[in-house]
């Protein structure tokens, strides 16, 4: 058995680790350099002796998990799991092992320094209807923010455009480790946000407004027109396809070439905006419907229903008066963030307790950091929600399995189950507690270098 040769991992305090950091840091930097070349897990790894939070089949004390070929190949009690020969066996006694965490809305890869515009690719504000913006095409895989997030066990995330437009573009679903953007972008155009919170209004109503849409009715009319245009567009293309098929048939029948040329139909002009809406109109992909209060929520839902969109809800931080209605929709909710301030007349915990209130009504909930720099704090929110009544298991599911289900990747992610991608986190305690320290992260069975820009600065100035 070996122990990973990493000062953070082996539980030494910062102070104890000083003096040994220099050669180790070098090793880590080298490890990072090489691992970016190696795409696949090289040899099986077995973590032995830890407490496994499987998410799907309870907690296993003194468990073993085996990772092979990038996937989980065995999970169970130490007594019942056979470790393959040649596996690297790591003693994780005293550690808690859980599946990689999934953040259901981030801006990872779309920003570096918030106040520096040239580092931001968050949202295209020139128009409200921008479904043809693909976050995958702006995603910056080398962002310094990504290692910071994954160091705390976040292994997967939704990358969404900022909410300045009603239809700001399409999300990506990423893995937070890989040699390049292609490898990290697990799903391009994974979903599409539709924001209806009032914040999308241009110069906000009133007699002074100069730009449409400056009101909610303007936003709604514009959205409705966009979906109607997309329906028309679909019809036009369907007609064209039909005519083309007819023409092809006629071609077979008739031999007159002159006549044949005349009957060849012309394709409609391609429109990228409308084209981008089609998978959503057809219910093939999920719309992420964002609203805060009861009125906006119901307006947005009726709009979605009008066009038979498949949707999940986002935020609904101030929908407390209509939670039964929310439950009746039978769709998952990306809730919060629960740190959203309550309304003036509301109790201090009106939003803190929202996850518990939704769960009680049978709603599937997931959490999101809605952040880029603070993605690492995703589990804190889940933990805090338990202080206001959300059962612990549900809180953990909300950042693992539930999220995997919402984003259509539950076959691969979200729990410690055989056959799933080996995204596995080793920590010195409860994943939802703010003071828990993550010691090692595995992504697709690969040992992620436990370093980032901040660790390097820490170590540099610890030596001085």
């Amino acid at each position, binding site marked *: 058995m070996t122990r990973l040769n990493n000062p953070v991992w082996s539980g030494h*305090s*910062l*102070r104890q680790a000083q003096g040994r950091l220099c050669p180790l840091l070098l090793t880590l930097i080298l490890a990072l350099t090489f691992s970016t070349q190696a795409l696949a897990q090289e040899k099986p790894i077995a973590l032995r002796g830890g407490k496994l939070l499987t998410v799907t089949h309870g907690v296993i004390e003194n468990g073993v998990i085996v990772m092979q070929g990038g996937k989980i190949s065995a999970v169970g009690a130490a007594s019942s799991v056979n470790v393959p020969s040649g596996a690297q066996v790591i003693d994780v006694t005293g550690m808690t092992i859980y599946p990689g965490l999934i953040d259901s809305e981030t801006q990872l890869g779309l920003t*570096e*320094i*918030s*106040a*520096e515009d040239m580092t931001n690719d968050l949202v295209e504000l020139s128009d409200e209807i921008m479904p043809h913006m693909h976050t995958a095409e702006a995603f910056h895989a080398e962002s*310094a*923010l990504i290692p910071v997030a994954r160091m705390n066990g976040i292994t997967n995330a939704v990358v969404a455009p900022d909410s300045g437009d009603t239809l700001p573009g399409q999300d990506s679903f990423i893995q937070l480790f890989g040699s390049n953007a292609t490898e990290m972008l697990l799903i391009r155009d994974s979903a599409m946000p539709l924001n209806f919170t009032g914040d999308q209004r241009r110069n906000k109503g009133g007699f002074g407004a100069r730009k449409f849409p400056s009101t909610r009715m303007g936003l709604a009319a514009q959205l409705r027109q966009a979906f109607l245009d997309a329906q028309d567009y679909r019809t036009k293309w369907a007609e064209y396809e039909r005519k083309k098929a007819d023409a092809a048939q006629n071609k077979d029948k008739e031999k007159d070439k002159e006549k044949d040329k005349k009957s060849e139909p012309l394709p409609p002009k391609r429109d990228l905006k409308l084209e981008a809406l089609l998978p959503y109109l057809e219910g093939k992909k999920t719309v992420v419907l964002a609203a805060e209060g009861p009125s906006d929520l119901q307006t947005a839902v009726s709009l979605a229903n009008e066009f038979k969109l498949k949707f999940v809800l986002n935020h609904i931080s101030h929908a407390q008066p209509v939670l039964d209605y929310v439950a009746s929709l039978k769709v998952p909710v990306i809730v919060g963030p629960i*740190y959203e*301030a*309550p309304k*003036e*007349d509301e*109790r*201090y*915990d009106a939003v803190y307790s929202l996850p518990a209130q939704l769960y009680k009504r049978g709603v599937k909930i997931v959490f999101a950091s809605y952040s*880029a*720099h*603070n993605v*690492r*704090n995703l589990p*804190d929110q889940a*933990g*805090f929600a*338990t*202080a*206001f009544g959300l059962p612990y298991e549900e809180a953990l599911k909300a950042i693992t399995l539930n999220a995997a289900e919402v984003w259509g990747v539950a076959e691969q992610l979200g729990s410690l189950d055989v056959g799933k991608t080996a995204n596995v986190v080793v920590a010195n305690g409860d994943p*939802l*507690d*703010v*003071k*828990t*320290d993550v010691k090692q992260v595995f992504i697709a069975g690969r040992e992620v270098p436990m370093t980032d820009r*901040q*660790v390097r*600065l*820490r170590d540099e*100035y*610890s030596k001085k």
Partner: protein
Amino acid sequence: MLHYVWLTTTLVLVSTAAFGQSEGFAHHDIVIKNAIVMTVTHGNITNGSIYIKDGKIAAVGETVNAPVGATVIDAGGRYLTPGIIDSHSHIALDDDVNEATSPITPHMMMKDAFNYQDKAIYRALAGGVTTSLLLHGSANMIGGQAVVIKHKYGATRDEMLFPNAPRSIKFASGENPKRVYGSRDQLPSTRMGNFAVQRQALVEAQDYMREWDSYNDKIKRGDKDASPPKRDLKLEALADVLRGKIMVQIHIYRSDEMLTEIAMAKEFGYKIRAFHHALEAYKVADQLAENNIAIATFADWWGYKQEAWDAIPWNATMSMRKGVRVAIKSDSEDYTRRLNQEAAKAIRYGGATEEEALKMITLNPAWIVGVDDRVGSIDVGKDADLVIWNGYPLSSYGVPEKVLIDGDVYFDRSLPGLGTTHYKEGE
């Protein structure tokens, strides 16, 4: 200025007495028993008790002597800490945080903008905050003078002012003044501009101070013809900084600027109480410790602007180990509601002890505010500003059950509605 402070204090004392009598919650003798008392200064007392008399901590220990008639609060074995102190806040000022019309505005008094009815005060109270330092914003190199409040939500405006709190002034540096004035093609638009503006103001204050000193000398010598110089509120405030009568709190990010501010303070002979934000303190922690400058920092915020790019979550513990007094503050209506969780991050990043982490949101910010002799720990003689938690406070799970200020319960989670005792909805 001194006269002004004295007057306020008198008003506070008078109105407290009147309020107490008419509303029927004069300070009773209270005993909190059966608590894990986290004293901050002398360890934890499991199964401890506190005797509160006249709003002050009169005794603390495994057992306390208290009169028979004292009201007993059974903490049910829960944790009890001092009230949290937020040493950097802008709540309850509505939008009047920055008088961004000139880079030098030391005569702005945050108290004049203080909106004691702001619900943010209540929401912070529910998170265990009992004292906050409400500061001017960072648009100006020298902003206004802070107000210190106690979160007695539902009390009168004057009752919420921390009695006899020392004066603090907000200085700033770096990107914010640069951006605010630079975007208007005004001075300052660079860091050298920033410091030139600051130095110019201090030089003028020196002249002003000399004029007044010479006038006062003449009066002392019996010169009846001496005519007083014209009073200038701006320069008067800065003269008080130079006289050491106002504590200097500086918004600052980069370590090089910290060294420049230290040099500037030496040049003009004033002391810096604390660097706020101070995300690069870990780079110059020795110099900060040497000059007895505290930091009020974030637990793990970073990257929101260029000067926050070198922020690391180990800043608090690394600075602490070099002997710097470290406070974790909110600078946020949101984070002020859960500073206990932010402090717990110091345990995770760099292995602070429980007591060290707790100190970062109690005794250390109390020192920064200048009220560490009155609040910030559970010691005899201090104000009975206390929080009973439903779980371990240095975790994601601990939530305040009851919050007491000056021995009165101001928040009780078990109550319906807002959980407030002094504030009634609709009033």
